[in-house]
């Protein structure tokens, strides 16, 4: 196990607020190997972004606090290493792309300077060299006329171009891991596809591992090797893409899949969103956090927190009924999906 690129075990990140303890991440585990892609899926508020930020140590502490667990990058703990050590990793070995390219770039600096910044910090390049490299990176992410555009300010770029610029910035130092936090959510649908394509293409070229955080299972369907489904800060299902898509074990995963409008697996069935709202993280429902919204919930689900367990291989889930064949059948029938 020690030779994984990134290995997260039982990570818990709690926020201590005046209103109570927010259990934003509550026992997340996964592994990531070189060149691999991990999809992290969940509704907003499920703790997927916080998981990424916790690994990068970008959550404010306090009020945040890592309660338990660890995240090891190349065998070193990201959680306990010193601030200047993790700073050397951020943007260098692990880079991040954020959701909203409109606001993620600093409006008062030129694009080129912002892309060049990690190179100056981490690679010790001169500003001039870094700017030349920024031109190349922009060309790499498909910005036309990059020599001119490096001198532009963010507001002169369109949304898609800004996200390309963000990707260029993230890739500047050839990171081993690229965390993309909903990189396409804020973009038009056509642009979304282009960005995903670009990321896949670049992954092939650079061999970076990618953690793709999204609320949209469709986005990771083609891209991810493994998928982690999260709900209310807890992992509910983890497995290879095939396992998640073809043998989903948790009712929430099913619900997510049902809410994909144009999924290839769906035959002319009505869109079937999950009922209700995600729970407050201060006041997480007892037992299985999903039980108020779960159509199959029973008394046990209200009383007992289901344990995460491996069902087969690496495929695991946190549902009392996981592995119960009858339960799976009912799921399938209700969802109108033929396994």
């Amino acid at each position, binding site marked *: 196990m020690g030779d994984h690129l990134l290995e997260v075990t039982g990570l818990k990140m709690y926020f201590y607020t005046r209103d109570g303890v927010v259990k934003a991440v509550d026992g997340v585990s996964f592994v990531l190997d070189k060149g691999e892609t991990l999809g992290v899926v969940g509704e907003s508020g499920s703790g997927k972004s916080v998981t990424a*930020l916790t690994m990068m140590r970008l959550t404010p502490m306090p009020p945040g606090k890592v309660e338990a667990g660890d995240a090891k990058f190349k065998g070193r703990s990201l959680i306990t290493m010193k601030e200047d050590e993790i700073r050397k990793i951020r943007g260098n070995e692990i880079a991040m792309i*954020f959701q909203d390219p409109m606001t993620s770039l600093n409006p008062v600096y030129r694009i080129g300077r912002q892309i060049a910044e990690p190179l100056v910090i981490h690679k010790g390049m001169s500003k001039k060299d870094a700017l030349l490299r920024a031109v190349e990176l922009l060309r790499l992410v498909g910005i036309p006329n990059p020599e001119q555009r490096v001198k532009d300010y963010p507001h002169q770029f369109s949304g898609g171009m800004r996200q390309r610029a963000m990707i260029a910035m993230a890739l500047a130092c050839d990171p081993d891991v690229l965390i993309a936090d909903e990189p396409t959510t804020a973009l038009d649908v056509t642009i979304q596809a282009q960005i995903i394509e670009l990321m896949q293409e670049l992954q092939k070229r650079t061999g970076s591992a990618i953690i793709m955080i999204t609320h949209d299972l469709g986005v990771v369907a083609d891209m991810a090797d493994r998928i982690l489904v999260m709900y209310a800060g807890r992992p509910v299902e983890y497995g290879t893409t095939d396992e998640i898509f073809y043998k989903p074990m948790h009712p929430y995963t099913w619900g997510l899949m049902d809410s994909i409008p144009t999924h290839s697996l769906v035959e002319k069935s009505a869109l079937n969103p999950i009922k209700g*709202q995600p729970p*407050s993280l201060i006041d997480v429902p007892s037992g299985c956090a999903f039980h108020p919204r779960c159509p199959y919930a029973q008394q046990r689900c209200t009383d007992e927190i289901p344990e995460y367990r491996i069902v087969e291989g690496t495929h695991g889930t946190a549902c009392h009924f996981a592995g119960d064949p009858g339960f799976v059948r009912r799921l399938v029938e209700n969802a109108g999906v033929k396994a």
Partner: protein
Amino acid sequence: MSEYDRQESRNEDHGIEDSHSGLPAMPPMTDAESHIHDDQESRTLWGDAWRRLRKNRLSIIALVWLTIVVVSAISADLWVPKTLGDPRAIDSSTVMANQLKDSSFSHPLGTDDLGRDILGRLIYGARASLTVGIAAVAISVIIGLLLGALSGFYGGAVDSLIMRITDVFLAFPYILFCVLILAMLPSSARGIGPVIVSIGLLGWPSFARLFRSSVLSVKQNDYVDAGRAVGASDSRLMFRHIMPNAIAPIIVYATMSIGGTILTEAALSFLGLGVQPPEISWGRMINDGRNYLIGNHPGLVFWPGLAIILTVLAFTLLGDGLRDALDVKMKD
């Protein structure tokens, strides 16, 4: 403001999303959960606001102080002359014996150069400060609401004319404007009235801007269009839709402005253009007392200043509290 909005900004006060994390936004409470906070009190905007204000310790202290000031100023005639002595009366035959006394049991803050009790004068001085503060702001609010409404409602040339005028008013040094108006006035007209009018006439632009933006933001709402569609008159729109939404920021800003107005009144009186003796004003007291600093009688200056500071601060803190309680978003 909708329930949802209020929940949002209430969380803001607890400050977790001030930080730079990508912390998930607090999801709104479901109806089932909100019963925890629900008690028997009415759940109106004002009820909520009062409950929240009550929890704000500084605002309550401010409110208590203001109550003390107001009550003692109003009731002063009943007890001050009997206990502390008439704060305006001078007796030329005893003034030498009574002037510039240090604090004592009968004169808690001492006496001034004409032998009058400083505390008594402070209490009477509060009348001028509070009257000017409240009345001038009231004038500003009325003018500001009218012009802001005109501006926001009709837009176009009316709007740009009014906004241009507000620019002029905001650009020119405020005190100088007041000084110009007051100093040019015929002498017989000097006093509290012109101070109120001049401050009131100059204070409206902020209210006009505030109200204009309220009008504009409300105008964009669908229900205003809907109201128009069913033939609601402008005045009906104003009072049924715009006013209820705009009133909270106006109240908050007005409360804070009272403090500023008290400061302006004090400054004008200090310059000799405000309330004229024998009427009493805190600013005037400071001006009268400044000559006694060098003779080591700082109380003549210190106490009125402290009264101004505490009162202005109280209005500011109360305004802050109201802002939080009423969920008004304002920039500093």
